[in-house]
């Protein structure tokens, strides 16, 4: 456990200056700020629609979720899984990492947990900033009645589901980035997977849940269909199974890995 904690601490220390780390903070900050700015500057048009507070919140949150859930989140996960492993490939530091008196499981698990934590930070910030900026809009413009409805329950459910749905993609991309050091393979496979996932969901393919890249899109689509109440649905179970199986597979790759 001690080895895992110090490995995790080291991951944070060495990655704190990388784009993958800052993107987990800047993506929610930028996207939420942009949507909030759009709501602020286009307030007359939006207020003319006379939305009820729940519908107003859904419009506001939906503007963020629509872009984030099906595009930004999967891309971020693909890029971040690449970055967490590439830091060792690029600097040729696998050899020094595995020459430390730490068990290989801790080194591997710390990298994986770090990647999971970055997704958590990113989604938590999306959740917190959506809530905070919505209320800020109400303060800046009294016409908005954001204070008359609390979207806390909806937000926490949808972001929990998005978080869980992203673990499947993360695990696939993590293994790909662990094996290959180049940029094109993980990004290329991720991009193709993502397109396939979106097509499978939008075409209503019944086996879409077997494609990890489709899980986030399925969560977003479920929101639109009004069935977001449940947290554990088929795609979430599929994502968790993918995550567990591939996490273990990744560990076996690591212990068999020879640093030539």
């Amino acid at each position: 456990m001690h080895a895992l904690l110090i490995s995790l601490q080291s991951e944070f220390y060495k990655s704190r200056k990388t784009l993958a780390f800052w993107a987990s903070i800047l993506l929610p900050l930028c996207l939420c700020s942009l949507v909030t700015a759009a709501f602020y500057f286009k307030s007359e048009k939006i207020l003319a629609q006379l939305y009820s507070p729940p519908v107003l919140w859904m419009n506001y949150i939906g503007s963020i979720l629509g872009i984030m859930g099906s595009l930004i989140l999967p891309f971020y996960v693909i890029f971040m899984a690449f970055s967490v492993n590439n830091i060792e490939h690029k600097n040729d530091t696998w050899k020094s990492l595995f020459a430390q008196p730490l068990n290989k499981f801790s080194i591997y698990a710390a990298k994986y947990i770090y990647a999971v934590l970055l997704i958590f930070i990113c989604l938590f910030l999306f959740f917190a900033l959506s809530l905070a900026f919505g209320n800020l809009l109400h303060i800046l413009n009294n016409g908005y009645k954001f204070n008359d409805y609390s979207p806390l329950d909806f937000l926490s459910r949808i972001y929990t589901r998005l978080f869980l749905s992203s673990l499947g993609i993360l695990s696939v991309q993590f293994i790909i980035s662990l094996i290959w050091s180049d940029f094109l393979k993980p990004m290329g496979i991720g991009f193709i997977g993502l397109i396939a996932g979106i097509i499978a969901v939008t075409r209503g393919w019944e086996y879409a849940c077997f494609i990890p890249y489709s899980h986030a899109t399925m969560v977003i689509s479920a929101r639109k269909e009004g069935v977001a109440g449940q947290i554990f649905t088929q795609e979430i179970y599929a994502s968790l199974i993918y995550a567990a199986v591939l996490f273990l597979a990744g560990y076996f790759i690591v212990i068999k890995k020879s640093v030539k």
Partner: protein
Amino acid sequence: MSNLAIETCGLTYHFGNQKVVDDLSLKVPKGSIYGFLGPNGAGKTTTIKILLNLLKSPYDTVFIFGKEINANRIASLKKIGALVEQPAIYAHLTGKENLINRCILLGVTREKVKDMLSLVGLTDAADKKAGNYSLGMKQRLGIALALLADAELLLLDEPTNGLDPNGIIEIRNLMSELSLKHNKTILVSSHLLHEIEKVATHVGILNKGKLLFQGTINELQTFNTPVVEIQTDNREATAAFLSSLGYVVSNINEDTIQLPFQSTAETGKINTLLIQHGFTVYSIHFVKKDLERLFLDITKTN
């Protein structure tokens, strides 16, 4: 209790079909500075990676302080500080941050960072990104990283690579100090004997994965048979004349010929014979091959 810091017993290692380490039986005594020599591609780095368990060795072939490495990986690595090939450094972090990161992994106090930077002469460049370091500076940082854990055994793979003459002397002095004052065992690899002959107490010569020689530096000197080197006005005729008298001409160089040294009296006799038979002798003297030549001879003949 074994007196060996490193022991390999008939270690063989393949990359695919290629045998890179062949029946290697290293014996590195505790407290020694073991010069691990061999030309490029001899298998030195592969051996060091096996000693770090980065490459998996067969069971019961590699022992670190008497313990089998596969069964005692973490305990063995706790006793080893290593610099392998090019130093493994995070280019986006500063030199100081690289050391702090290693402190985190090793559970070592960060206070040591300042001492290590000073020890390898990087105090002024501590806050510069390691990616912008010169090769020599990276090498120094790599050495500092290897020393950080204060390990009993140091594996240094070509540590003077990229260093200027002053840097080489500093590293040499540092190795001597670590061995003498702190009783560290150091295995230092190089393809240049003269670089480490001044500090090494023991030497192992590796070529094409095979250990050709292993022993103390003095034992290596005993391999070094002295010769008599003669320079005359006619090299070929001199060689033919001496051969006709039963002398073995071991080497004919550009200007000189060489014969195995027997005694000073015999050398005097050769000189007299040559002059009596009309040769002009420019020089005749006793020569002991330098170790560098010896090293080249050993690796060439094998």
